[in-house]
């Protein structure tokens, strides 16, 4: 475990450096005139003006060569200075930190709900495959995977904010405002967790050591949870790190639909406005969080699964 952790941590700087290069290059390789895009983000229907464009390019440092721009940005980032946003002309770091915090809370709550709802349902469904509960859980899981967020969000709002006004339809900052976005965001991972837990549990219950447990007289719920669900958790845990990273920057639909000032919306706005410093810092932030999150998920999986642990240590 310790060795695994050390090896993974050792690769982190190289991974971040490689990611920073890709993050820097990709928007520039897209062929978009950044200066013009920035000007249009400030004034939507401004006509092109080469003189103004040259002045803005100089102001934003875009008149320098790409290597110079990259090294300058990297050097500043290493000292914690993420620069100024092209759009707002204010420091990026506070905006990014705030958005990252919002998205982290949103993603963590969604994963928590997904785990609390999805795993027990999947495990219970696995107890008697093909029976009513199993069919119901499987059907709901298919629905949860198939229904996109842009459909689920308005449906939940209409049901739980309009028809039965229990929660606010938009906004962020109070527990009540978090309910609908978290439910929307949790639907897909919950469905996946239920399916995965069900499959893993059915597989676990068929293993020889479970037969031994049955021979010892251990049965019912104890068997299900102690021997089946524990193994089922390993698969779900391995996915959770990846899901967390994905939800951090990828919850654009939910953040836009509910007016949440998260990282997904920040990145979306940055792409539209060609706000390169914001885009670069945001993506770097996602990578910086995703790598440790993935590592944490992997370590948790090793802690839960002795077979996988033995394979790594061998």
């Amino acid at each position, binding site marked *: 475990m310790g060795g695994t952790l050390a090896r993974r941590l050792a690769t982190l700087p190289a991974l971040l450096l490689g990611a920073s290069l890709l993050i820097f290059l990709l928007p520039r390789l897209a062929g978009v005139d950044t200066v013009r*895009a920035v000007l249009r983000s400030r*004034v939507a229907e401004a006509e092109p003006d080469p003189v103004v464009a040259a002045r803005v390019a100089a102001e934003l440092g875009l008149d320098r060569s790409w290597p110079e721009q990259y090294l300058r940005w990297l050097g500043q980032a290493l000292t914690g200075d993420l620069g100024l946003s092209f759009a707002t002309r204010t420091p990026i770091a506070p905006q990014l930190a705030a958005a990252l915090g919002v998205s982290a809370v949103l993603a963590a709550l969604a994963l928590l709900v997904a785990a609390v709802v999805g795993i027990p349902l999947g495990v219970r469904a696995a107890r008697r495959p093909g029976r009513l509960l199993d069919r119901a859980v499987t059907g709901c899981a298919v629905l949860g995977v198939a229904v996109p967020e842009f459909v689920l969000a*308005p449906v939940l*709002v209409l049901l739980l904010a309009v028809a039965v006004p229990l929660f606010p*339809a938009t906004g962020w900052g109070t527990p009540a405002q978090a309910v609908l976005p978290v439910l929307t965001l949790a639907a897909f991972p919950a469905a996946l967790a239920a399916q995965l837990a069900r499959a893993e549990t059915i597989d676990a219950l068929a293993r020889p050591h479970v037969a031994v447990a049955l021979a010892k007289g251990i049965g019912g719920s104890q068997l299900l949870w102690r021997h089946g669900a524990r193994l089922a958790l390993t698969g779900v845990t391995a996915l959770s790190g990846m899901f967390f990273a994905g939800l951090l920057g990828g919850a654009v639909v939910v953040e836009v639909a509910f007016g949440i000032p998260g990282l997904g919306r920040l990145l979306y*706005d940055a792409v539209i406005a060609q706000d390169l410093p914001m885009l670069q810092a945001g993506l770097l932030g996602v990578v910086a969080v995703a790598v440790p999150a993935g590592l944490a998920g992997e370590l948790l999986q090793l802690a839960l699964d002795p077979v996988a642990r033995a394979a790594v240590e061998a």
Partner: protein
Amino acid sequence: MIDRLFRCTDDLRGPAAPAGPDAVPSGVETSGETRKAPMPRPTTPRRRLRARPVVALAVLLGLVTACGSGAGPSGTPVPDGELRLAAQFAPRSGYAMDTDDAFVVAQLGSAETLVEAGPDGTPQPGLATSWAQTADPRTWRITLRPGVTFHDGTPLTPAAVVTALSWVAGVTAPPRAVKGIGLRAAEDGPSAVTVTTTAPDPILPLRLSSVNTAILAPSAYTGGPPAVVGTGTGPMRLVATDGTQSATLERNEAYWGGRPQLAKVSVRYVTDPAARALALRAGDVDVAQGLPESALLEFTPGSGYDDRTVAAPRTVSLKLNQSAAPFSDVRVRRAVAKAIDRTALAEQALAGSALPASELFGPAVAWGSQDPPPAPDLQGAKDLLAQAGYGPERPLTVRLQTYPNRPELPTLATAVQGMLREVGVDAQIRIGEYGPQEPELLAGRYDMFLLSRNYLTDVPDPGSTLVTDYSCAGSYNIDRYCSGEYDALLAPLATTADPAQRQEVFRAAAAKLTADAVGLPLVHSQENAVAKGVAGFAVDPLAKSLITPELTRTG
């Protein structure tokens, strides 16, 4: 709740509400009047549900849950009420006053300009009470309104005005209202300033009605974009902003135009139109801007909603590249004009969310055409195409490009494609982001392009649009149109200050563009907002005004 679920409204769509108050005193020399009334525009009825999946789903579910209840638009004003607003546009540039974010600040009633735009497009008093050209025609003397204080308690002085105007004129990318005119401001005594431009500028007062020239307290200008919190002069004082999520305003007790009715305004920036509709339906907000046409079906007067829809100074035009075949031939351009049914585009393709256009300028402005567009003439179009050498033996194939940022454009492109097919023109649609397409458009490397353009963006005078978009030297002449006759028509705009004479030029220019088949104006856009439990509510098509001293909650 159960009965609410099963109760149905018998009137899904009642008659549109009347337009809001629009009495603004005219005359340059007046002072101390009630103000902030937006330009009056015709209110139009809604027509049909538009088949957009998400919104349609929301509407269907909304109809299940819709239950008419609550007071109508008229009610007893609630003193010191709080208004909750779902705003359509979030500040994208940190409320920087040299960007479009200035519209957000102005709409919220926080910042004001020296001059206001009257309903007929004439300059009206704002923070300035009067103005006049001096003996040097390049210089205007502007008298400031007495007794005005900024939200930070400091008085409006000539020095403060000079600071604000100098800042906006000196930014790296000056806004269009002051760009390229060499604007300089100087103090002129204890209650006036002079504003000088490089050349005589007949519309300088109108330029000073641009929200980008709003005057903030000197404390706002400390380097970088000005700080807008607590530095305006308007009826509401901006007290807090939370990025692109929200803003909070409180009443400016010392407002020069009288005590505002509202005590507080809470703004949520909800950029998704369906989410704004749902927030209004859920009662999270009292006013929602820019709702989708289909969502408006459920906001009926019978349910207590007050829907205001006004014509906007925005036209969707089909640009035709005149620098190359086939549209260098005026017969082909006229054939396209005859083939397209603009009324059907507005009423069917866009489900009534737009108005059919007969000219560049529409009902949003005093000089705009009120006439319906000509009916389509398919045989006439085929004849013209045949004269130009196109027909079954030599079919015409063109590219029809547009961009998806405005959702109506791809819809219109599809409808136009179908109409052109009727006369034997094969239009191949290409949809992509506007930015990468712009250089190709300006270089004349395209056939047809659907463009949505606001012709009064910063100043209620389309003179600059007529020059940049259609003159031989125009910097945004996508049509690649060049006519000495047209340029000569515009010449008086450089010297004419009289609004009536300028409007005659605008009319003549628009008629000339129609006669020469320069592009094809298809539809005029509309703006809307819906309120519940609110009085004194109106929609400003110029997007400069929303929160006014008269706006109040009702109970």
